[in-house]
């Protein structure tokens, strides 16, 4: 389809897009002991470039203490037919400060520049929300899941911005009986949004008290929304199979009702779909067993903090942050996934303490896949306070970014030996990289109407 808006006409068109040459990842100093602002790093991922596998630009935020975390685009393929829109701005929320940084990545893609800051205090006073997490564009507008009210108490809600980045207020008409917020994804052809649950900011920000899971301070439910009515209509209680249900992803195919959630602490993948009778169903399709650590009295869960679906909907990728492995599953039959690839990088089991000559503090945590499904970029830091609990050596060593080469035809994963970005060597001292995105859109940003 000939058109002039951002993104691609379809997932199959996205797969054919030119290879990514740059990627952006946030890097934090919050919680590290280094009194510098968090920043957006531009990484050269063009193997033909003399600066391949290096940080080539750093855009510092105006203040310290934001804890940049996830980020999102102002526009995606949902605006493909809107010639007035372009994918120009990346929105970088600070989880701790509530500041939203709007960054212009189009004027000079190698050197993004700060366009605007929406102050956290203004968001609190106008919407009674804090703890920004997932950013999705919504046609020409933007919604952001906010995990708490202005005092950091759950469940928070959704912040609505217009395309000029002016606060429009709360997006949702009701939070229903939802106890917590976290991630969300929507599938417009089915008028559905699915949201997941982490915890109140006041619970997760100081660190992870495992005991609080039993006190119901962490989530274990998935919520299905009437997207147009902007209210939840059905919830699934996942119980012990779904402790800390974090990332949610629908198939990229806009006609599909299949979607997936990674339950971090249970270390399970939950699959949902709409059956022939029009009812939403769910099942557990992957259960990563706990591992015995030689020096630990209790078994160690994997902690699956992220999942990702390849653009062709064939593969699901997941991490086990504490075990240290990344996995690839063929989900051609979403009810019966088949493990097709696995690599270790870091982790607490000691299976891959270094990668390409760099000591890995942390384990595989966030990842972004190329649109063609061949290159998976993986980073190692989860959240400053949680890093400090499980991987205290990350203070001195910083985070790393690794590239895993993936076979999108036959399955399989292998660490690329030519690529590694060691954030332990950053000019201001060791920082920690987290989510990554490409200038042209990626496998966790675009939604088709």
């Amino acid at each position, binding site marked *: 389809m000939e058109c002039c808006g951002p993104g691609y006409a379809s997932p199959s068109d996205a797969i054919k897009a030119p290879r990514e040459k740059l990627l952006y990842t946030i890097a934090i100093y919050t*919680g590290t002991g280094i009194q510098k602002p968090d920043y957006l790093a531009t990484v050269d991922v063009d193997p033909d470039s003399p600066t391949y596998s290096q940080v080539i630009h750093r855009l510092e935020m105006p203040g310290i203490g934001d804890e940049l975390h996830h980020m999102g685009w102002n526009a995606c393929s949902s605006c493909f037919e809107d010639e007035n829109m372009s994918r120009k701005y990346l929105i970088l929320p600070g989880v701790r400060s509530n500041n939203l940084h709007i960054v212009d990545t189009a004027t000079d893609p190698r050197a993004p520049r700060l366009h605007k800051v929406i102050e956290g205090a203004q968001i609190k006073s106008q919407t009674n929300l804090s703890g920004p997490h997932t950013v999705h564009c919504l046609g020409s507008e933007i919604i952001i899941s906010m995990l708490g009210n202005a*005092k950091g108490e759950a469940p928070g809600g959704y912040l609505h911005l217009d395309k000029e980045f002016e606060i429009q207020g709360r997006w949702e008409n009701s939070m229903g009986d939802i106890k917590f917020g976290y991630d969300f994804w929507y599938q417009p052809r089915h008028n559905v949004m699915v949201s997941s649950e982490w915890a109140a900011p006041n619970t997760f920000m100081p660190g992870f008290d495992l005991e*609080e899971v039993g006190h119901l301070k962490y989530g274990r439910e998935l919520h299905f929304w009437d997207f147009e009515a902007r209210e939840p209509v059905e919830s699934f209680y996942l119980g012990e199979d779904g402790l800390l249900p974090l990332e949610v992803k629908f198939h990229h195919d806009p006609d599909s009702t299949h979607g997936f959630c990674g339950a971090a602490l249970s270390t399970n993948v939950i699959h949902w779909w709409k059956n022939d009778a029009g009812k939403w169903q769910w099942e557990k399709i992957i259960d990563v067993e706990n591992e015995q650590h030689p020096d630990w009295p209790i078994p160690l869960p994997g902690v699956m903090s992220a999942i990702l679906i390849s653009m062709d909907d064939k593969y699901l990728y997941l991490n086990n942050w504490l075990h240290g492995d990344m996995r690839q599953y063929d989900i051609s039959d979403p009810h019966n996934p088949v493990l097709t690839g696995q690599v270790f990088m870091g982790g607490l089991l000691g299976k891959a303490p270094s990668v390409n000559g760099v000591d890995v503090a942390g384990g595989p945590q966030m990842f972004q896949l190329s649109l063609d499904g061949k290159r998976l970029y993986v980073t190692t830091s989860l959240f400053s306070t949680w890093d400090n609990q499980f991987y205290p050596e990350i203070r001195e060593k910083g985070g790393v970014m690794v590239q895993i080469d993936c076979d999108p035809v036959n399955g399989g994963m292998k660490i690329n030996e030519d690529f590694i970005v060691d954030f332990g060597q950053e000019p201001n001292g060791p920082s920690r990289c987290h989510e990554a995105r490409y200038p042209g859109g990626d496998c966790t940003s675009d939604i088709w109407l």
Partner: protein
Amino acid sequence: MTTHTVTIANRESATYQVNARRPLLEQLRDQGVDLPYGCEYGGCITCAAKLVEGEVDQRRQVALNNRQIDNGYVILCVARATSDITLEIGVDSHDKLYRNPFLDPLKPHELKADIAMPQPSSSKAIGQEKEG
């Protein structure tokens, strides 16, 4: 106006005068002390410091569990000095702030205040005003 003296033990015992009615973080930062911080409402632990001597009022904090409080941690963005105090600041004071929860579980009385069980013994944190 009541003022107190803050001594920062791990910054060559530098001293600062603070107003008893305002949070320590903003007052120390105003006087040039380079301190980490995040949420600025007592919810996120980034600005935690260790109270070595003296007393603070940190009733507004919601980030610390009782073990962290018993280990002397205070949340500077909401804590106010109620006497002359001595602090250790920054991440070099965080040796007991973070623990691996799988290796080192909290006892029921060591949870955060809203879910903690009563403390079995009479041992009580020194220098902390926990009650409203």
